[in-house]
């Protein structure tokens, strides 16, 4: 099956080349596309000078709109599987095969790479873990799905989910929202254990002050998804 790795990138000039190198080393021959979300640093120059396959958004859309551009690209080029892989070095390319396998075998439609199943590697701060736990509880309550790492951006989606995401994708904090949208739409979501790294360069898009707001917003979003019951498919 034809797989595409989508790498959202915003101001990742320092990381992106390493990310692509590790991807090529661990998954030789896999297709990829970087989505440059209108970076303000010289990410674009780095992408062009290294001949990295990429989409250049003319205005900043945020992670949701950027990923959706990648999903639309995948649909246009008829890929069977898409993998979201962050450009900041947090994700290990060596797990991409594991992530894809359940989709290939028809066991799941959306596969999330979770840090918290085997509890190995970078585990983030205690407060964040608590937040992620809470989100997991909300997801279990509303979506009847067991998710230990709802905010993980390391995930593989089958063809139908990719097509679904290319039409409907949460925009602001899309990771947990896309899980609830998928389960409510009848897709099978599965988690597998992965090991993540601490980011090497740059800062997380979510700082301490924003975390509380993030939690409230995402929880509300999940509840609203459940409440509105919109036909997403």
């Amino acid at each position, binding site marked *: 099956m034809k797989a595409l790795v989508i790498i959202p990138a915003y101001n990742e000039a320092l990381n992106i080349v390493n990310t692509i190198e590790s991807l090529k080393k661990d998954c030789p021959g896999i297709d990829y596309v970087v*989505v440059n979300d209108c970076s303000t640093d010289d990410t674009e120059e780095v992408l062009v000078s290294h001949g990295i396959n*990429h*989409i*250049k*958004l*003319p*205005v900043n*859309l945020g992670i949701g*709109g950027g990923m*959706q*551009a990648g999903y*639309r*690209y995948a649909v*246009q080029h008829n890929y069977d599987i898409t993998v979201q892989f962050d450009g900041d070095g947090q994700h290990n390319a060596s797990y991409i095969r594991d992530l894809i396998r359940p989709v290939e075998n028809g066991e799941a439609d959306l596969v999330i790479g979770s840090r918290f199943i085997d509890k190995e590697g970078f585990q983030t701060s205690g407060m964040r873990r608590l937040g992620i736990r809470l989100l997991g509880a909300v997801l279990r309550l509303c979506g009847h799905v067991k998710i230990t790492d709802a905010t993980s951006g390391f995930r593989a989606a089958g063809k139908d989910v990719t097509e679904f995401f290319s039409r409907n994708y949460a*925009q602001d904090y899309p990771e947990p929202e896309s899980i609830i949208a998928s389960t409510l739409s009848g897709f099978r979501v599965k988690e597998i254990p992965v090991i993540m790294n601490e980011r090497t360069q740059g800062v997380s898009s979510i700082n301490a002050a924003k975390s509380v707001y993030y939690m409230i917003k995402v929880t509300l979003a999940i509840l609203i998804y459940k409440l509105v019951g919109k036909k997403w498919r």
Partner: protein
Amino acid sequence: MMTTLFRTILIILVLLYILLIILLMRKGRMSLKYSLMWFLAGLVLLICAIFPGIIRFFTHMLGIYSETNAIFFVGVIFLLLIILSLTSIVSGLNERLRSLTQTQALLEKRVRDLEAAASDKENKA
């Protein structure tokens, strides 16, 4: 009880407000589609100011103490509705802008790829 002074001020303000809408539309700064709800709000306020009997009737029916409060009540309801519709408009615009941005980016990539392929061919020839 609405005093004549208050009614006069209200009428003058509403007329100024309608004038402002017309001015914005003439300058092309407001489209007809979105001006309708503002016109409607102004019209309702104007009618209430000119014929206080309507407001008096509603005030008694709803058990509001003063007619001035009833005017405010009507105004706030209208504002809420208009703001809600604005949020809906912004959401729609946001959606379209995002879709356009993505489509443009995907096309830009295709053009870039086609140009690269064309220049490759040229170099080989």
